[in-house]
């Protein structure tokens, strides 16, 4: 039996687009591809991205966790969107 390496967590690069200019829509769409509890790496260079990402995740029921550069954060998908 051959052990297989787990596939790397998906990432999204939102470049210089901030959450104050619509980047949350891209992140939301990427999160929909993941199961609840799945991790999405977010990278980007918009000012205040880490602050806004943490606040947005909190409000949406997701979790933001520290991530090594070049990622800004890991976003852990919450269950709120699946319960409708």
């Amino acid at each position, binding site marked *: 039996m051959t052990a297989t390496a787990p596939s790397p967590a998906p990432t999204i690069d939102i470049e210089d687009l*901030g*959450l*104050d*200019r619509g980047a949350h829509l891209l992140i939301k769409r990427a999160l929909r591809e993941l199961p609840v509890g799945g991790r999405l790496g977010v990278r980007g260079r918009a*000012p*205040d991205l880490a*602050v*806004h990402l*943490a*606040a*947005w995740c*909190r*409000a*949406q*029921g997701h979790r933001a966790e520290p991530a090594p550069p070049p990622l800004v954060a890991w976003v852990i998908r*919450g*269950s*709120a969107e699946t*319960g409708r």
Partner: protein
Amino acid sequence: MAAPPTALTERETMRHATTLRLGAVAYDPKVVTIWDGFKAWFARRDLDFDYVLYSNYERQVEALLDGAIHVAWNSPLARVRAARLAGARGAAVRALAMRDTDRDLTSVIVVRADAPIRTLADLKGRRVAVGAIDSPQATLIPLDHLRAHGLQPGLDFEVQRHDLLGGKHGDHIGGERDAARALAGGRADAACMIDGNHLLFVNEGTLPPGMTRGLARTGRYDHCNLTGGPAAPADLVERFRRLVLSMSYDDPEVRPLLDLEGLKAWKEGRVEGYRALEAAVDAARFYDRDGTITCADYRY
């Protein structure tokens, strides 16, 4: 002439004792919708529940300590005062539950993107806009963050306060929004606000996109708290706590209420997240260690 008050009947006395009485502050008309909705939800689960609205957190906390209410839906500052008042009486309050959105918040100190302000030291001699005098997130905690970095409010920089609806502990965010407006309008050099409100103020147009940037961010702290009073009936409060924690965002009946209240899930109450505010309250001399209001400018 009105009839003299009569004593409660035995049945009324029994009902009074078995009704969970919760206090909430009327900072917005939606508070009535939320707690009326929760009341009906509790009733369907055989919990006799009622709520009392207060115009300010100070009276609510005093009512909690006096036993007029069993549980208070407290701001973080109200939780600090409740714990101090209880401690001074040799009693204790209990952190029952909090929203998922009450955990691990930060505040930010924001400047105009083109301002020659690169470090906190550059705020020396400048105008810093804050929220209401009793706002933990837009006044007390950020000002204490500046103190910790060697800047004394009122001495090293001018504090530009935006007092609105005193006693509501900044819940309505009006003072915070006014602070952001002062920054955008050039009447202040920096403004303090909760992290999510920076994003909100940009999205709603109070702050034009790209006009501001974060200069500093405080450590993490916790926000509101369902606080159990010292003399509240333990079984009744425990039943209430378990029901609150059982509310599910998947439940179509309770979901709109959770949306109005701004949460996806209730979490267990915790108190570690109030340390930063405790320190800020002491530094600002807002309450003394016994919970007495010592801030001379505070009106509610």
